[in-house]
């Protein structure tokens, strides 16, 4: 009998405020140790926390983006434990009254195994709460001593807790990715996983169908989607093996070792802390007015899910393209700019053979959208990957790209010509029209010229024409090659095909 996998995630997202959640110290990453540790970060005697409004606004935006209830009154609580990188001896967090209540996120799952089809799923978000980050212990800093760096202490975090709604590593990764996209999309976090701005704890358990939930183990601090998938796969197999071999799963916190690909217990439930949560008397309850909430709602951009649906329903894109284009707001905005701008540059694509061909029954904007989508998810994404850049660093602006795409639409550029223009834009910048001019890439779409050219070839290759006409269809490519060569590659391929077919038919 097969096993069911049950997965829930707790994600710590660092909020993109300039200063810490309870003090004016900077949150910039990578400074010299303790240079961003002010009196509050060090927890000097007598200092007090003052809540950063920007952190609250980001939490509210997140809640609105996942359709969650925003608590009109939430409470900060102290989570008490001793550790050298926790200067106050307690972390200020939220416990029984979090700022964001139940919400949900729609995810697109691409199964990792062979031929299963992509599908959509809704993952419920239990809650999201504000808290401060701890500092860092730097072990073995000098002579076997442990150093403490409090730069990170007090950095604002939003901890986003999901329901145990996921039942495969693929779903967990899809959820984490969707969340990662969302927090960057709405501008509440830079989502930088290397710098720890987006850290995932994954709760995993297994059970036989119909049975109650199994005992879970929590994989802590995963900061890459690849590791998350590996860790879950390993952990699931470990739990199944353990049970099938007659063992029992004990609640535990575990760590994933990327070098060995294995998980390992860090501490068991027996040594779990009693955190002695209680409301922080230094902070007033956090009151959020309807007005404040609505003013923030007004600042939210069109969300990834809404845009994905729009791309499919209004622009006629495939689900696959729509997913790819909404993987980041930069990509989606780039795409939107292209679609809107190309239309302006090439106002009447009806007359062009490129758009008239192929039998698409969709409207013009759909054709345009598909062209833009192909270029963005194809050539542009490939080039970004090759150069190790993300969309925000793309050297070709959407305006530049549109200038080029417009020349495809109006038939000035052939596909190969367009690729050359794109390479030039990427490497040297500039403007498509100027590049086409200087490199002589304008394709021949003058039907008279193409007909003349084809006539010449037919006249010069009477034997091959005869063979073709007697049924050797494969020779068609030979004629195309000759014609292209004769036009120095500039003939409009579609037009050329049409003319050739027509003339060869006799």
């Amino acid at each position: 009998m097969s096993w069911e996998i049950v997965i829930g995630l707790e994600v710590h997202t660092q909020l993109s405020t300039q200063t810490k959640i309870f003090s004016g110290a900077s949150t910039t990453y990578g400074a010299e140790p303790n240079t961003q540790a002010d009196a509050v970060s060090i927890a000097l005697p007598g200092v007090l926390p003052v809540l950063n409004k920007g952190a609250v606004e980001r939490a509210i935006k997140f809640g609105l983006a996942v359709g969650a209830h925003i608590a009109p009154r939430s409470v900060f609580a102290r989570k008490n434990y001793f550790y050298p990188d926790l200067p106050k001896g307690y972390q200020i967090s939220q416990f029984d009254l979090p700022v964001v209540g139940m919400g949900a996120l729609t995810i697109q799952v691409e199964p990792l195994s062979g031929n299963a089809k992509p599908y959509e799923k809704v993952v419920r978000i239990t809650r999201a709460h504000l808290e401060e980050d701890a500092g860092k212990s730097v072990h073995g800093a000098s002579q076997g001593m442990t150093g403490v760096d409090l730069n990170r202490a007090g950095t604002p975090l939003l901890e986003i807790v999901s329901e145990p709604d996921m039942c495969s590593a693929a779903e967990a990764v899809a959820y984490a990715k969707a969340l990662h996209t969302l927090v960057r999309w709405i501008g509440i976090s830079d989502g930088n996983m290397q710098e720890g701005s987006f850290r995932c704890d994954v709760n995993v358990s297994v059970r036989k169908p119909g049975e109650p939930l199994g005992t879970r183990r929590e994989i802590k601090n995963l900061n890459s989607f690849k590791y998350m998938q590996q860790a879950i796969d390993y952990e699931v197999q470990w739990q199944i093996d353990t049970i099938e071999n007659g063992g029992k799963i004990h609640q535990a916190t575990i760590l994933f070792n990327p070098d060995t690909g294995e998980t390992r217990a860090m501490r068991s439930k027996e040594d779990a802390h009693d955190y002695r949560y209680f409301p922080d008397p230094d902070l007033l309850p956090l009151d959020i007015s309807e007005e404040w909430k609505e003013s923030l709602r007004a600042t939210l951009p069109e969300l990834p899910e809404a845009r994905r649906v729009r791309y499919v329903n209004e622009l006629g894109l495939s689900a696959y393209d729509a997913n790819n284009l909404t993987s980041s707001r930069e990509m989606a905005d780039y795409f939107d700019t292209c679609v809107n701008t190309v239309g302006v540059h090439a106002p009447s694509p009806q007359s062009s053979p490129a758009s008239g061909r192929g039998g698409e029954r969709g409207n013009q904007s759909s054709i345009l959208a598909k062209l833009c989508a192909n270029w963005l998810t194809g050539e542009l994404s490939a080039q970004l990957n090759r150069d190790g850049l993300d969309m925000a660093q793309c050297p070709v602006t959407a305006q530049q790209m549109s200038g080029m795409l417009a020349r495809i639409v109006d038939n000035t550029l052939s596909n190969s010509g367009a690729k050359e223009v794109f390479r030039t834009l990427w490497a040297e910048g500039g403007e498509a029209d100027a590049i086409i001019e200087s490199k002589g890439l304008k394709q021949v779409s003058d039907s008279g010229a193409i007909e003349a050219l084809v006539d010449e070839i037919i006249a010069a290759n009477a034997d091959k024409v005869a063979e073709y006409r007697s049924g050797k269809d494969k020779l068609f490519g030979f004629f195309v090659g000759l014609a292209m060569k004769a036009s120095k590659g500039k003939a409009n391929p579609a037009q050329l095909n049409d003319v050739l077919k027509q003339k060869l038919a006799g």
Partner: protein
Amino acid sequence: MINATLKQLGVALRAKQISSVELTQLYLDRIATHNPVYNAYITVNAKTSLAQAAAADTLLAAGDAQALTGIPIAQKDIFCAQGWRTTCGSKMLADFIAPYDAHVIEQFNRAGAVNLGKTNMDEFAMGSSNETSYFGPVRNPWNPKAVPGGSSGGAASAVAARLCAAATGTDTGGSIRQPAALCGISGIKPTYGTVSRYGMIAFASSLDQAGPMARSAEDCALMLNVMTGFDERDSTSLQRDKEDYTRDLNKPLTGLRIGLPKEFFAEGLSADVGSRVAEALAEYRKLGATLVEISLPNTRLAVPVYYVLAPAEASSNLSRFDGVRYGYRAPEYTDLADMYEKSRAQGFGEEVKRRIMIGTYVLSHGYYDAYYLQAQKIRRLIAQDFTDAFEQCDVIMGPTSPSTAFNLGEKGDDPVQMYLSDIYTIAVNLAGLPGMSIPCGFGDNTMPVGLQIIGNYFDEARMLNVAHQYQLATDWHSRAPL
């Protein structure tokens, strides 16, 4: 000069009858002579104080003086003052030099006052006799065998012994009012949120409130004018317009309704204290006030509720004293846990450890609801008692402390007996109300008796008026132990 009021000192300074440097030196000399007996100060820094005095003299010469410019004020050693050792009465911070000023210290600096030194106190303000200080007990100037009360015992002793012009204190469960009563001085704990807690080392954050300790209600009003004001660095600081607390001092008391909680005049109150309070109330009737019997039915719950909530907050507030970044660290330890345990075991005194343990217990899983949550509920009931009472009266009066000053060591073995000495003051902190103590005579052992005045929220000006009118009619406040 040492018996002059703040107002008189201000006049003398502005009239150049004395300079701030001379006045400061006068007090420094008195401290040098008497502090070995009273132990009211933990730290004196003559050079710094005299430099401040010289700066104040410049202001005075330029005619830029405010009410307290040039006047030497003693600061409770719970307030961080930049460059000053700030110990909070603990071995844990015995060598801690504060790198910043508390809001209260800033306010006095802005007013041009002189910081005369840091006064002794119960360790982390936990105590009612000043016997828990790591720096030794403070003596009561009226009888050096007796305690001065606590936790602001050093401040009360210094004011009574004329070792400063006035002092600051803090009050979590009576720590301004009880020592004021036991040392025969005036002290007021304002409404919670009136004085910023920024830079004041936390004991129980939801109860802690700073206030003045001085020789008269009028002096308290002048001090309060300096100490209060909104501070954005304390989220519990209240955003209100700045008040002049002297504005109502001279209003007549005709028609004043004084509420007398029957629970304050019951079992446990010493007869001599009861008599002095009754005499004071008779005086108030002469001044035109009427007496109304009221009830604060949950009074008996105040001490137990307090000893759940205050230790709970303290157990968390004191976690930062872990030997990692500053403060005491045990000289020898084997690993991290051992370093924590030894540093805290050696750095904290017995009473502090007792309260950390109580607080940790009541917040623990399985006990939180029964203790902490229950106590919070009763806290609201206690506050409601006062709200109801103020429907019938303008101020509430009663004894500040059930007895006069007891002798050192007398209650040392019985923490509960010690806790009960705050039985009349604690409810005021739980409700966040302003409370005051003024001297109203002497007990059988010739030690001072304090009259407590409790006001409604933000009614400090009225309370000071009520106290001042009494002090115009009597002279208990100007009696000196020397």
